[in-house]
Every structure is written in C-alpha cells, then in structure tokens.
C-alpha cells in the first residue's frame, strides 16, 4: 500500500517534459511493433485462423 502510494505520488510529480518523453517512448514502441506492416496486413495477422486456433489451444491448455 505504501509502495503504491509512493508510485502514485512520483507519477503525480512528473514534470511536463518527463510526461512528454514517456508518451513519446510509448508511441515509438507501438510504432516499432507495427513498422513495415500495412493496416490490412495487421488486420490479416490478427484475424489469421491458424494463429487464432493456436491461441485457442493454448488457452485450453491453461485451463
């Protein structure tokens, strides 16, 4: 609880530039994940039935 409060306090005290750098870093990471792929390719990847069936199997294994 104390640790959570400290983290929250620290986040609250982040300066404008710190926040912008944090946001920029996260945008950049997301962009890198998608880099070189068109929107259609990303949608195809997400909806690939083979990929989906693998996820389904994994989920069943977990249960």
């Amino acid at each position: 609880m104390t640790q959570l409060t400290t983290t929250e306090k620290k986040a609250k005290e982040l300066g404008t530039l710190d926040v912008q750098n944090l946001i920029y870093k996260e945008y950049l990471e997301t962009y890198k994940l998608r880099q070189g792929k068109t929107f259609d390719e990303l949608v195809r990847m997400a909806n690939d039935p083979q990929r989906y069936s693998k996820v389904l199997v994994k989920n069943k294994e977990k249960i």
Partner: protein
Amino acid sequence: MESPATIEELDRLAIEFSGTRKKPLLILYYHEFEGEMREDDVEHICQEIKRRGFHRENKLENLDVLLHTIGGDPHAGYRIAQLIRGVTPEVTFLIPEYAFSAGTLSCMCGNEIRLGECAVLSPFDISFSTRRGTSGDIELMSIDYFKNFATDCREQAERMLTRLGSHNPSKVESDLLVEMAKQVGTLNIGRFYRARTLTGYYAEMLLLEYMFEQMPNKDDLSNKIIHAFLFEYPTHDFHMDFHICRKLGLPVQEMIVDESDKSKKLISILKQLTALGIICRTIRDAYKAPFIRLYM
C-alpha cells in the same frame, strides 16, 4: 529578439490560465498536419489523467479541454470524448484556433465550446487517404456533389434532346457514375458510406448524452446538427466560425479578448517547442506525437 520558448514558460502560462478560469486544464495539442487524432491517444490521455490522481471513481469537478487539431480518426474523436466525460460531469472545450473534423466530433460532448478570436470548427465529413492533407484525399461530400453533377448533366441533356424532338433517356448520368466508381473504387465508396453512418452515430451519442442532455428538444436539436455536419456544408474544410456554430444551435461562446490572447499564446509556445524538437517529437515521417498534459 524574442528568446526561444521554454517548457517552464508553457507551464507558467498554462497554470496561470487554469487559475484564471478556476478549472483544471487538459491540453491536447496536435501539431498541424503532422499530428492527427488516433485511437492510441486514448490510452495516453487516460494515463495522464490518472497520473494526476483522477479516474472514474475520483472525478474532477469540472474541466477545461484546450484542443488544437486538424482531426483524424473518428473512433479516436468519440473515444476521447467518452473518456473525458467519464472523469468529469462538466466540460468546456477551448478552441484557440481550430479543432477540425474528429476534433469537432470530440467537442460534441462539451457543455460549452469557447472559441478564440477567428477560431473555427469543421464538418466531420469522411475522407480517406494514405497521408492527410495530400491532394489524394477523397471526401464523401465530393462524391455527393459528383452525384448531383451527374444528375444535372442528364437533366440538361434530356432537355436538349426533347427540344430536338427525341424522347430517349440520356445515359450520361450512368456513364459518369460508372467512371467515378472506377476511379474511387466501389469498395471504397461502400467504406465511405459506412464510415459516415458511424460518425453520425457517434455524434448522436455525444449530443444526446452530454451536450443536450438537459434540453427538452434534444432529439430535434441533435438531428439538425448531425444532418448539417454530415450533409449540408459544401466541403470538408468548410470553416465553421462562431456565427455559423451559433446559428446551428451549438452552445458556443466567443472568448473574451484576454482569454483568447492567452490561449493563442499557449498554442504559439506549443508550436515553437515542437519546432525546437522539445515536444511532439517525430515518430515517423510526417507523424508527430501529440502533446498531452493536465494542469491543475
């Protein structure tokens, strides 16, 4: 010579502005044609509000949202609006210069929209392109107008044929429409119409749930506004100033001169800081991160 803008100067002005208005201030700044509203922004705005200690269960009493954008994804515009309303029961949108398209859509969740001197909103028509602002943009309104043009052409051709004694129908309209479908692509046309229905739906949700929630004639008002935004204005980049917005029935106010000057000064500093590479840094070619900050 004026000294270059600094983050400290931005913070000082923003806090001063927020103090004058006696409300917290959320700045959402998208840099000209290199910044556009995207769904990714929703999470970052949510995080910034949370960092400052507010969320759905610990709401802000009220909030000013200073918005500067050329627009972007209508899904983003709608979700940002819902996110903002989720953390406060009272929102005022401050538009120092412009909030176009998806930005205008976001404003539809406000209790009030305050426009700076000469500030404008725009219709939220649908346009698709690989890069915003390029001549390759196709607007749904252009398709509507082309359809009207094709009908006019047929009517004129048939009038001429009647004068010459012929009663055969002219096929100029279908020829023109076939040519348009070839150029734009039939599936694209379908996508445009679907997206327009979707944008209309989003706008209706925001207007009924928030902007006109307390109005007895909220259905009529929102229908009138949605129809105007989607169908009546001549182009996507039609500029809707205070007078047009007020005539339409939107709850707009003109900022007083001092307020307008200060809000424009904030935008000017944000532009300078972007040019200096301090904020809104480039993520990829022609796309910069937005500036998101909640000042208390």
